[in-house]
């Protein structure tokens, strides 16, 4: 789908090991705080997500409103925390969907070869012909806007990518001697795949999926920004940026900056964790 996006960047360690450890721990801690805030949103947020207050519009960050307010006086900090739920659940749902299909198809293609493998190759070819989010845009043009459509469309676009990755991992795994040993003992293909091969693929797959999570979050936020994903009154972060856009001309940057920085921070943290995770899991995998 997007061979040019963040996942290609998430490699080649240039930065020293110690610094990477610090970055990893900081990112992990930050993500845990974000997830906790999302889970506890109604209790943590000082205001309701859609509490309008016309006496306090476009406020800069201060004591009453930690991160300021938007054009109708909604508290940005509270909206951010409430919006974290949709912003994080979206990519999670899309990855879950894409992984189920991708891993199944990839494993079957590797195991059976033949026409299923050929079909997978053709499907990925066609998918790669649609650069960036274009396939998703086509699905949205046909099925209409909305978060569910955006998630399913992105899952459709990611599934072949995951399938291709799984296929290459599975092929390497099947070349290992234990697979032949089980086969000689008469263990069936399905059982062997589900019980041994797929679990062994999990470690390298997991790191990849974490990096894809960051990419998915960006894509969903982009779709919401264009008006194709989350719809008002949601405070999904991409949508928050879009709603903040009107204030920019009048010099109000906070309603855009706050959700924009949140997206960037989470994507960076996810990438750092993802790269570290795949490094560590891979080294264990190879040993």
């Amino acid at each position, binding site marked *: 789908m*997007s*061979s*040019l*996006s*963040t996942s*290609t*960047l998430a490699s*080649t360690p*240039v*930065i*020293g090991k110690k*610094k990477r450890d610090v970055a990893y721990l900081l990112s992990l801690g930050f993500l845990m705080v974000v997830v906790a805030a999302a889970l506890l949103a109604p209790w943590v947020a000082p205001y309701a997500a859609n509490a309008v207050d016309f006496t306090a519009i476009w406020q800069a960050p201060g004591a009453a409103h930690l991160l300021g307010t938007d054009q109708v006086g909604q508290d940005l900090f509270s909206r951010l925390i409430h919006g974290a739920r949709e912003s994080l659940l979206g990519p999670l749902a899309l990855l879950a969907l894409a992984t189920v299909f991708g891993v199944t198809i990839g494993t079957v293609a590797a195991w059976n070869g033949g026409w299923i493998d050929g079909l997978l190759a*053709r499907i990925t*070819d*066609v998918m790669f*012909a*649609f*650069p*960036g*989010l*274009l396939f998703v*845009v*086509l*699905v*949205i*043009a*046909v*099925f209409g*806007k909305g978060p569910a459509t955006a998630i399913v469309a992105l899952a459709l676009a990611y599934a072949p990518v995951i399938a291709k990755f799984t296929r290459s991992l599975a092929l390497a795994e099947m070349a290992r001697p234990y697979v032949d040993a089980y086969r000689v003992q008469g263990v069936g293909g399905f059982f062997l795949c589900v019980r041994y091969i797929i679990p062994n693929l999990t470690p390298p797959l997991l790191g990849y999926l974490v990096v894809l999570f*960051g990419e998915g979050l*960006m894509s969903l*936020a*982009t779709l919401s*920004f*264009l*008006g*194709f994903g989350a719809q008002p009154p949601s405070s999904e972060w*991409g949508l928050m*940026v879009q709603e*903040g*856009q009107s204030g*920019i*001309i009048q*010099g109000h*940057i906070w309603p*855009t*900056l706050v959700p*924009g*920085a949140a*997206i*960037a921070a989470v*994507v*960076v943290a996810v*990438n750092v964790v993802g790269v570290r995770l795949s490094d560590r899991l891979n080294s264990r995998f190879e040993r």
Partner: protein
Amino acid sequence: MIRAATRIAGMILTLVVSSFVIFAAMYAAPGDPVTFLIGNPENMTPERVAEVKAQYNLDQPLIVQYGLWASQAFMGNFGTSFQYHQPVAELMATRLPATLALVAMASVLFIVAGVGLGILSALRQGKRTDSTITAATTLAASVPSFVIGLLLVSIFSVQLGWFPVSGAGEGFLDRLHHLALPAVALAVGAVAIVSRVTRQSMVEQLSMDHVEAARSFGLAPAKLIRRHVLRNAWGPILTMVALVVASMLAGTVVVESVFGISGVGKLLVDAINTHDFPVVQAVLLYMVITYMVVTTLVDLVHPLLDPRIKAKDKKS
């Protein structure tokens, strides 16, 4: 020769399949294609139904419909926009210059910045400059382009007043002025990828024996880099640059929306919002074709520019 032929045949096959996907997508929509194509039920007049049926040959079998649509599209006829009541090809023609100018400017920016930073990174390999460049470019690539765009508008257009807030401008200089910020917003993400590839490719070449030998003969560093390192390193860099440009041609949707540039990307978003399916199909088809042609071209030209690849191909 055979390689080129199979590559082109593969491209054409993929194009046929993906254009079929773009065409047949309307059949996946809930309800029948006529209702889908008309969209708003208020417009369901008999004339409108007849118009839509005629434009898409809906009374023919699907494969014939596709064939007629594709052959028309091949001749540059994408039908009439339901929204603007204008041939889609004309709409696209008026929108294309802005998009192409934007991509061209962004390309210049990301090539200069990306290759420059990549070279610097490789020469300072393992030093602080290297890690700072890697960290900064990766960080910048993690910020969505619409956020970067809006921040640029806020700082340079609203606060400082240096650049216009929106539009694509008229005439050469005005257009440069209008598209400067959008081009930066579009280029930022690509800098990370290109500098990464440049660094990698340079580092590989720097460790080669002939470079070591040239260095030991006391060749001036600048000459060494230009003659012995860059000359061998630019293959992967060029490929990556072309790939990025190809995906940019199809990826201006977001930046055009942020800056209110009436280019092809904005046309696509507007067409989806107004339910103007002929325009959606035409823009998607244009983008897929451009992307496919450019990437295939890169594949074909690359070995011509770098004889080492041809040699490798023969061996395998």
